[in-house]
């Protein structure tokens, strides 16, 4: 252990390689070096599988497997892999705090927030009595702006929203007043408007407590807004690092360029061609749906409204984006359109196809989690064949030909057909699911958050793929998403839902014109990477021309 002077970096990772021990060791991180100085806001960026999460788990000595570590990690003057058990505990308590991706999973579900805080506080204040610990816990919760902190102590994690849970996690991580906060995708599991709040909180704590922050993320929007330094990882190797302004305005590595390009917000242009009104293929008319937790709730009429007088239309060949935060009723609307849920009242009409009234409209659904909607034990090929067999395609050669064509449409190589879903990447799995929906040449696809499980670059590919299919086959798409960037990218029409009500139903080209509904405005403001100073000079980011947004 060396004595640290003020000039020493808080984190010094030197030529770090991490491999899984085994017959043939698999190297996950190779020769990564970086330094984080006091007060830095250091962002480690990369797609899933790039080794960013593994690197920061290695910094906490928390890897879920037995690693072979080469190189060194020095944090707060301590060589992490030279610490003995007692020193490691002290290191985790006093030097570093860590916040995880899913706050609900990171808190013990069967114990109250209070008991988990007190347990941690007792480490730092072994002499304190119950009252003092309680007061400190309340103080800590107040520090992360949790309203009514005293009342939250007796509450279980599942009774709090994701945003509040993440605040609790941050409070817990900072109880020992560490010098470094490692935040591993801290906002990925949260709604977009909550994301901004949590990031603001981290910013505030960083300034107030002189905290050094290491933020791990795949979301470049976040990074552009807040980081002072950026390091980009690709397949376990560092491809670029430097001051944030430099990396953002002039990324050197081809990979980072591609990443930044893929994550750019294309603000909708208003020169979108006037579209001819096509015939309607799906319409919601005054649909109501309320969920009740129990029979008693039903009798008392206290339920969660998922749809209130919900009315909107999807026209042929049109991409309609249904947006709103979790709990706004988006998924329920999709399920009702598919007939998987019954509305309490109102009508949902799937209109027959225009050229042949007798032919029913073919509707297909793409579910949120691609891996969960594929049979893990069946080869992709067999799953695709099954769909066609059910619909009476008897000729195997014809089926195969059709499948190969569809697979190519979504930009997949034929070799994925041989695999089982476990061996597909997230993006491949998602495209297989889309291909499965396309096999029957549907007129309407309902896609529930088709992009939430995949990385930015793959998002781009899938969006392009959907757009191409719309242009070529005239498929209508009802796209459910919480991400406005996706909407700007491909949608023609936006329907904003809040608490089951339509608060906005406009063409995308006019969506950002002036402030409309306050809630919509909030969603627009929450788009990360929007108010970026460097963006003006960079051709990559198209800033909105609307005065309201330029001011905000």
């Amino acid at each position, binding site marked *: 252990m060396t004595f640290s002077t003020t000039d020493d970096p808080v984190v010094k990772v030197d030529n770090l390689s991490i491999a899984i021990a085994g017959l043939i060791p698999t190297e996950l991180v190779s020769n990564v070096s970086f330094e984080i100085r006091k007060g830095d806001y250091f962002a480690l960026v990369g797609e899933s599988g790039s080794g960013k999460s593994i690197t920061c788990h290695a910094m*906490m000595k*928390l890897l*879920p497997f037995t690693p072979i570590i080469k190189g060194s990690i020095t944090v707060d003057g301590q060589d992490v892999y030279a610490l003995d058990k007692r020193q490691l*505990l*002290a*290191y*985790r*308590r*006093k030097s*570093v*705090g*860590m916040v*995880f991706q*899913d706050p609900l*999973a*990171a*808190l*013990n*579900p*069967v*114990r109250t927030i209070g*008991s988990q805080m007190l*347990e*941690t506080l007792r*480490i730092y204040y072994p002499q304190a009595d119950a009252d003092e610990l309680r007061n400190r816990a309340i103080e800590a919760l107040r520090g992360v702006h949790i309203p009514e902190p005293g009342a939250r102590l007796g509450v*279980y994690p*599942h*009774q709090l929203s994701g945003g509040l849970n993440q605040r609790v*996690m941050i409070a*817990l*991580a900072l*109880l*020992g007043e560490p010098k470094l906060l490692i935040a591993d995708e801290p906002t990925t599991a949260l709604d977009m408007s909550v994301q901004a709040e949590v990031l603001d909180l981290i910013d505030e704590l960083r300034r107030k407590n002189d905290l050094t922050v290491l933020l791990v993320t795949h979301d470049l929007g976040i990074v552009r807004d807040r980081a002072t330094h950026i390091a980009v990882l690709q397949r376990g190797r560092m491809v670029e690092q430097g001051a944030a302004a430099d990396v953002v305005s002039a990324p050197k590595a081809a990979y980072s360029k591609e990443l930044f390009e893929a994550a750019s917000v294309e603000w909708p242009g208003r020169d979108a061609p006037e579209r001819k009104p096509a015939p309607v293929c799906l319409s919601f008319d005054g649909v109501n749906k309320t969920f009740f*937790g*129990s029979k008693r*709730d039903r009798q008392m009429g206290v339920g969660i409204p998922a749809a209130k007088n919900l009315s909107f239309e999807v026209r042929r060949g049109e991409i309609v984006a249904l947006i709103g935060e979790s709990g706004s009723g988006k998924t329920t609307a999709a399920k009702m359109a598919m007939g998987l849920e019954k509305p309490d009242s109102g009508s949902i009409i799937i209109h027959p196809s225009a050229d042949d009234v007798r032919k029913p409209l073919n509707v297909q659904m793409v579910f949120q989690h691609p891996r969960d909607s594929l049979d893990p034990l069946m080869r992709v090929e067999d799953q695709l064949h099954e769909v066609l067999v059910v619909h009476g395609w008897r000729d195997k050669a014809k089926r195969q030909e059709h499948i190969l064509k569809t697979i190519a449409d979504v930009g997949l190589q034929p070799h994925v057909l041989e695999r089982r879903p476990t061996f597909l990447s997230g993006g491949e799995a998602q495209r297989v699911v889309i291909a499965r929906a396309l096999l029957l040449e549907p007129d309407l696809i309902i896609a529930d958050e088709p992009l939430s499980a995949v990385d930015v670059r793959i998002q781009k590919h899938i969006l392009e793929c959907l757009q191409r299919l719309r242009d070529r086959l005239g498929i209508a798409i009802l796209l459910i998403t919480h991400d406005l960037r996706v909407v700007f990218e491909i949608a023609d029409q936006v329907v904003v839902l809040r608490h089951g009500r339509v608060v906005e139903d406009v063409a995308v080209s006019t969506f950002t014109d002036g402030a409309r509904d306050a809630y919509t405005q909030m969603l627009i403001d929450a788009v990360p990477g929007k108010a970026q100073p460097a963006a003006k000079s960079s051709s990559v980011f198209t800033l909105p021309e609307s005065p309201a947004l330029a001011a905000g």
Partner: protein
Amino acid sequence: MPLLFRILRAVVSLWLIVTLVFVALRATGDPITAIFDPDNTSQAALDSYRQQWGYTGTVLDQYIAYVMSLLRGDFGYSTMSSRPALDVVMERLPATMQLVGLSATLMIAIGLPVGTMAAMRAGGPLDRFVMSFSTVGFALPNFVLALGLILLFSVSLHLLPSNGIGSWQHLIMPVLTIGLSKAAIFTRFVRSAILDTLRLQCVVSARARGLTEWQIFWHHIITNAVLPLVTITPLLVGAMVAAGAVVESVFGWPGVGRLIVDAVSQRDLAVLQMIIMLIALVMITTNLIVDLAYARLDPRTSAAAAH
């Protein structure tokens, strides 16, 4: 009220069991001719027995008479011993409860620590031993284990009595037989419950906060791992009563299990019926308690019921 609802559900289950017992016993032929040889018994005697035990009239009449007598607390007479069936079963119950209680204690005393240690050092020597031992444990039929123990402790070593009841020495082998075989299964359950919990993010995050392994184990691992175990334990205890049928016969243990065997072989329907209802009652009550305990242990379930 959820508690009232649960109790109501338990009552309905009990009624279903009672009805099934009725159907099952009637479906296996005329009980009277099964007990008495019709060739050597006068018709008048048979008829009077029919009258006495409620085997007259239509099936519905019989069913109503049967339910009514159950409600009055009249569970019929044992044909083996000409005493009320309830008394016959009740006098055997303490022996079985003693056996099952001690076996369950042994199962938990072995399963919890061994399963936990195996999980904490997954892939280590203890874990490998536990996994192979438990495979042997539940592949081995009870009577083989029982006979093996008798051969070792009674025949070769002359340490323990092979048969009967009375002293604590008599208890050792039956308890070992049932307890060890169920411990083999229970240990595996404990191991996998702990392994699942170790992977939980909340355990990783507790470790990241610098909690000691002791705190992590008692506050975060056990609290979560206990949930699946609460569900499985009563099922295993129920299975012990069933295992008793074989083990009690081997060791001459005068419990309910051996009574089942006797009652079946002598077609003592009233006793059989009594035992089935008793076991059903115990299982239903246990499940009720487990449901309530689960709601207490896992706040998420009680919240789901309250909202």
